[in-house]
């Protein structure tokens, strides 16, 4: 269960899908994007975004 405060901050709605990655001592959740084909173009040129900007980019 993701805490309500975090759900609100990240604009998470019921039914939001995530990818789950095992990083050894932690688990990473990445929100699935609506348009992966468009999202992937140039992704290597982007910078990892701060938490407060992630909700715009489909990243949890």
């Amino acid at each position, binding site marked *: 269960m993701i805490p309500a405060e975090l759900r609100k901050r990240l604009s998470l709605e019921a039914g939001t899908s995530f*990818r789950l*990655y095992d990083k050894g001592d932690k688990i*990473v959740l*990445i929100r*699935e*994007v609506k348009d*992966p*084909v*468009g*999202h*992937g*173009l*140039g*992704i*290597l*040129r*982007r*910078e*990892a975004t701060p938490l407060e900007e992630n909700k715009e980019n489909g*990243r949890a």
Partner: protein
Amino acid sequence: MAVPEQGDFVLDASSLLAYLRGEPGGDLVQRVFSHCAECGYKAKTTALVLLRVYEQAAEENELMMDDVISVLEQLPLEVVPLTGDLAAQSVRTSLVKGIKDSAGGSAAELATTIGGTLVTADKDMARLLPGSLLVSERTGRKDY
């Protein structure tokens, strides 16, 4: 350059990296993916190609690796496992065609086996495998 309307597409590391970097030709790879998504089928690559892409991506932007892996998993892209048989056929194809890297050899072998179109950003690779879809004019394979 037009995207062929039918047939299987096989992507090599150079084309996938052009797409992920947003380089010239990456937009054509995007169109290949869009075409596959619209038609309900998947482009193909090999596990060895994917490993090369991940290695290069991690070298260029390690902080984005989770995002890169996530988006690649969501694309209409089937990753063909590298079996012993594919490894053996890949090296034979590389020798016959003069392909110098193993990942490229595996992509060429897969394209040949399934009668698909190799999508590449490597001019040398396109020359070695006639019928390939060349998405840009990069030469050489050291940095894909």
